[in-house]
């Protein structure tokens, strides 16, 4: 037992020393996770990361209410550093806004019709048209959502003011004279009161929100802060980078030694085959864990991801995830006598795993059959567990089932791989 571990560690030490001397491999090792994270971080925007989106506004009205609405949208800033969400450009009419989108000068826009302020003053429903850029569904969806929220919120403030005015009149003059009095009063106070402070409830009067929004919905998360898409993909990328590194590293390392002839130098020594596997796996695991933490640090410091759970548990999950892939890596390395063949074989596993494991898309969006396939992949469990810990602050009890599955997968594949490795290296 002692020599099994001793020999394994000697091989691991040699592998890591050799790796640390190879500048090109070192550069790739560091650059790869940075590249993956940066690319994904910037490709998939979060709501917080939206800033300076060019939108066009055609304010055909020019009245006080519409001007204020445009000012509210112009002044909308991000949570992070106060940068404006929108960079608003003026256009004369809806056709000009559409042309702006076609020419890709703006990513969307909205049109305020000529009678907008007058309609509101006349206690009628006014309308704002949002024009979307259908060539960019993701930005378009986010822009539409933000514009609709802001315009809706502004509209609600106006509604609150109008209802407050009616309620005051009702109290002052009595219900019988309400019909004639309320219209006059509401018109004069509505626009002036369309500010957040206007939402305050007047003494002895019911809240206007009880009429405008009788049911208030409160969204409560498991942990503090808002969720965004990058937080969803970050654990997926971390697991994927680590597993890919281990799988390719392990298979590449054994087949490279086989190709160069150095494996014979180990095989001709009184070293058990399991020691070789332990050594290779330990070296690749150390590398994988380092890469995993590079990804994690980038996610935290560059993209603002908060780790709500324990870092130790994250490390344990990554370690077990690596273990689950060792058997597969050994199988590929034993079957392929050349690095190129090993790379091609691994690609067959990695490519589908990339899309099926839920790293980029929620599993629930996939057809049922694909979901069933996804649950055959260890990466799916590793990602699922990492999300629970990183995003939801889950503890070891919350990821127990994933830990068990990862362990069983690793154990079973190792049981299959070991005798095959013995047989294949001794053909």
């Amino acid at each position: 037992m002692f020599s099994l571990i001793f020999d394994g560690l000697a091989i691991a030490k040699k592998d890591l020393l050799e790796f640390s001397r190879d500048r090109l491999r070192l550069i790739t090792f560091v650059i790869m996770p940075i590249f993956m994270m940066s690319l994904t971080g910037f490709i998939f925007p979060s709501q917080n990361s939206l800033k300076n989106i060019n939108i066009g506004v055609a304010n055909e009205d020019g009245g006080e209410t519409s001007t204020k609405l445009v000012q509210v949208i112009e002044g909308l800033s991000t949570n992070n550093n106060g940068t404006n969400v929108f960079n608003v450009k003026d256009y004369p009419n809806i056709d000009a806004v559409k042309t702006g989108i076609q020419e890709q000068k703006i990513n969307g826009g909205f049109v305020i019709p000529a009678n907008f302020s007058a309609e509101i003053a006349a206690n009628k429903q006014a309308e704002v048209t949002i024009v979307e850029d259908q060539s960019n569904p993701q930005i378009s969806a986010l822009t539409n959502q933000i514009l609709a929220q802001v315009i809706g919120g502004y509209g609600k403030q106006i509604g609150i003011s109008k209802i407050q005015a009616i309620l005051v009149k009702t109290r002052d003059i009595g219900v019988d004279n309400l019909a004639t009095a309320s219209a006059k009063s509401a018109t004069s106070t509505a626009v002036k009161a369309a500010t957040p402070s206007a939402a305050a409830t007047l003494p002895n009067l019911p809240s206007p929100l009880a009429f405008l929004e009788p049911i208030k919905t409160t969204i409560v998360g498991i942990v503090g802060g808002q969720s965004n898409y990058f937080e969803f993909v970050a654990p997926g990328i971390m697991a994927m980078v680590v597993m890919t590194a281990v799988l390719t590293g392990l298979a590449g390392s054994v087949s490279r030694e086989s190709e160069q002839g150095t494996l014979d130098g180990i095989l001709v020594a009184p070293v058990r085959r399991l020691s070789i596997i332990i050594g290779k796996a330990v070296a690749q695991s150390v590398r994988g864990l380092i890469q995993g933490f590079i990804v994690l640090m980038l996610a935290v410091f560059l993209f603002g991801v908060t780790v709500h759970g324990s870092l130790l548990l994250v490390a344990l999950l990554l370690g077990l995830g690596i273990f689950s892939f060792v058997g597969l890596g050994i199988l590929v390395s034993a079957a392929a006598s050349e690095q190129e063949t090993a790379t091609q074989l691994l690609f067959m596993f990695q490519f589908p795993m990339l899309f099926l494991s839920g790293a980029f898309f929620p599993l629930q969006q996939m057809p049922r059959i694909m979901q069933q396939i996804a649950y055959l992949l260890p990466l799916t469990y590793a990602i699922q567990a990492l999300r629970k810990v990183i995003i939801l602050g889950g503890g070891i009890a919350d990821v127990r089932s994933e830990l068990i599955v990862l362990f069983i997968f690793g154990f079973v594949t190792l049981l299959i791989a070991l005798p095959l490795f013995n047989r294949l290296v001794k053909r």
Partner: protein
Amino acid sequence: MDKYNVENAGEDRENIIEVKNLVKKFGRFAAVDDITFNVKKGEIFGFLGPNGAGKSTTIRILTTLSLPTAGDAKVAGYDVVREQDQVRRHLGLVAEKVILYNHLTADENLDFFGSLYHLPRKLIRQRAEKWLPRLHMMEWRDHQVGTFSTGMKQRINIIRALLTEPDVLFLDEPTLGLDPQTTNVIQSFLRELNDQGVTIVLSTHDMGEAEALSDRVAIIDHGKIAALDTVVELKKLVPGVENPTMQDIFLKITGEKIRDAVTGKVGSGARRHF
């Protein structure tokens, strides 16, 4: 045994390698086809044969890197299938490809391979320092092997194989591609080792080297031992040629036709061992 097999030398010495009816097949192709021979303790045993004749496969079996399909083989009294670890402790291997890591220094390589035999670092250094000056590599021990010339790599490769002070040293083409100076150093070093009692199994295509170094020579062809004897005795197999060279003997026994034998499917294990 074939018609040229006239084994008769060294019978009074103890066998350190015993091979009996050894067969190695890759699919239906017999790379080693029922060979039997012994290597005497303390001799230099030349192993000649055309490409694909079965030399390297035989060496791989004797060094426990490959399993035989049938037959028996013992090295230093231990069975190469059932007592692999004991066999491994008694042999050193200088394979066709240099067994060294380019990104490690010569010392680091020696430390690593020595550690696989659980040799203490001090002993590894002690043994290395015995051979490094002899092979003119002392001043290069702290340099990465990747910066070495082919000859320098091979000299460290030989020291690596000697770290365990093996009873038998297997060398597969040890001077292939080396300049005459390095070849000369290595050949005289092998003679010294042999004088110190190390049995040497030398597989080579260099007929001059085989003739100069070997006590006995086995010529293997089509997986079978075609001839096995001392060089002096083998020369008698070429009558009518005055003072025949090893090449004359070799061509007489194996013929002059170029061998284009394939050794198995590409991608199968067979390719690894030739």
